[in-house]
């Protein structure tokens, strides 16, 4: 249930401002792809174009093609809602629904999209929480509010919520940037486990994290402030971190700028 993403000639705009330009890449199934690069270079924007979340912002639009196993996500008749059901997303800051319990949070995606039998729902909730390595910590208080968990637990709750709808692809936008090292480790372990089932794309500012978890890495950069961001280089992570082709990649990875 894991799919390949092919992007070709993608531009993304915020109103008149072009945020990213001419991005083309292939994201392989059952693998973790990391996006690295300095702040404001368009990594998150690009990530959000992959499940049509970019256009949620007023004035934002996209040109180009994103193919999910050959099917264009930006086809004129495609419903963005169905795209987002197939391509899930975890955000930078944990954002559980404050009015819902832990159980309801995990079940939210299914419940809000239609009726699901209670017995079936119980199974999916348990499976998703186990999948997110959170089950043992919360199994005795599923009815308690999701907002009462710690930051790291909340983020895993959000991951459980995202995988409960059984997406093909999981997009993660700096999922560990608000977490302590122990919670970060928990999420990284989880990602290694999830990649057997999902295509995972992660944006990160933490180079060590990219090196630790990802199979392939793309380096984004922008020529100058105000110019659109571009992909400078994309390759196997091991190669990117040991022997990059581009000078800019090497400078960034070795900490000479950014």
């Amino acid at each position: 249930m894991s799919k390949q993403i092919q992007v070709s000639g993608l531009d993304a705009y915020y109103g008149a401002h072009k945020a990213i330009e001419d991005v083309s890449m292939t994201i392989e199934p059952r693998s973790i792809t990391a996006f690295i690069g300095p702040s404001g270079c368009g990594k998150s924007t690009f990530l959000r174009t992959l499940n049509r979340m970019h256009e949620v912002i007023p004035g934002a639009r996209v040109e180009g093609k994103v193919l999910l196993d050959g099917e264009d996500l930006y086809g004129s008749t495609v419903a963005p809602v169905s795209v987002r059901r197939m391509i899930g997303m975890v955000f930078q800051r944990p954002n559980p629904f404050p009015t819902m319990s832990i159980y309801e949070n995990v079940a939210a995606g299914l419940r809000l999209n239609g009726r699901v039998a209670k017995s079936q729902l119980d199974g999916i909730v348990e499976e998703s929480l186990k999948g997110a390595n959170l089950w043992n910590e919360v199994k005795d208080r599923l009815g308690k509010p999701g907002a009462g968990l710690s930051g790291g637990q909340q983020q895993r709750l959000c991951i459980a919520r995202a995988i409960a709808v059984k997406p093909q692809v999981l997009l993660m936008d700096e999922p560990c940037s608000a977490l302590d090292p122990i919670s970060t480790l928990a999420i990284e372990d989880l990602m290694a486990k999830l990649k057997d089932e999902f295509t995972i794309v992660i944006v990160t500012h933490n180079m060590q994290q990219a090196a630790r978890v990802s199979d392939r890495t793309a380096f984004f950069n922008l020529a100058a402030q105000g110019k659109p961001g571009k992909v400078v280089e994309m390759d196997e992570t091991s190669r990117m971190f040991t022997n990059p082709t581009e000078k800019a990649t090497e400078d960034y990875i070795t900490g000479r700028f950014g």
Partner: protein
Amino acid sequence: MTTTTTSTIQHISTGRRVKDKLVQGLVYLAFGLAVVPLVSVLWLVIQNGLARFDMEFLTHSMRNIGARDAGGGAYHAIVGTLEQVLLASAISVPIGLLTAIYLVEYGNGGRLSRAISFFVDVMTGIPSVVAGLFILAFWILVLGMPFSGWAGAMAVSILMMPTVVRSAEEMLRLVPTDLREASYALGVAKWRTIVKVVLPTALTGIITGVMLAVARVAGETAPVLLTVFFTDSINFDPFSGPQMSLPLYVFDQAGRPNDTAIDRAWTGALTLILIVMLLNLVARLIAWWRSPARGR
């Protein structure tokens, strides 16, 4: 960097200490002054109203009771007030809430939403007597409809609507964008996101806003006087015939020269305050019951 750095630890001077205490004292004084009218109004109403606050007052109307007679009650006015406020809420809460949802979720600061915002502000400034005159002129004089509780409800709903829109709008704007995005990212449609995620999150605040609006219109006299007319008898049907309402009852009784009537006016005012408090309590209970934060 042009900040000057000092090499010694600075101490708070006596002058600053004195100023601090002075301002603190002024703040307490201002608070005390603000509380004086509130407490004195409550005190006066309770003191003068308790005398006639009995079962007869709550269960009888003023039918066949003259100004000089003892006894009589405000049952007809309580029924009228409750029905009129309920009807007014039924008109203005849906319209106000939908308007607020449009402004926050769909308007995007476009021309229409700016126009709506402007007219809501204008509506906020409408004097209550003008709202009453409008319904009197349009509904009763032009269309030839009779005085009724329904006409009164329409008049006060004009006053309620902008309050509901403004408070609901504020509460909806407080809901973080993160939550909407989290819902969209699960493949939930926009309208479902609004109904299932945004509104429940803002519910407590919206209820508080609605209750403030209810409290305001429950005490309106002028628009009710012009549209509901008044009566001494019980009229359960807000759609036909004159009704009564508590502010109107107070106004009517207080205008009579006898102690018995004046007493009834005070008790009417006390009843009105209690009804508004009770409605508030019920709304809080509903909000508490709906919120999961209490844990189950």
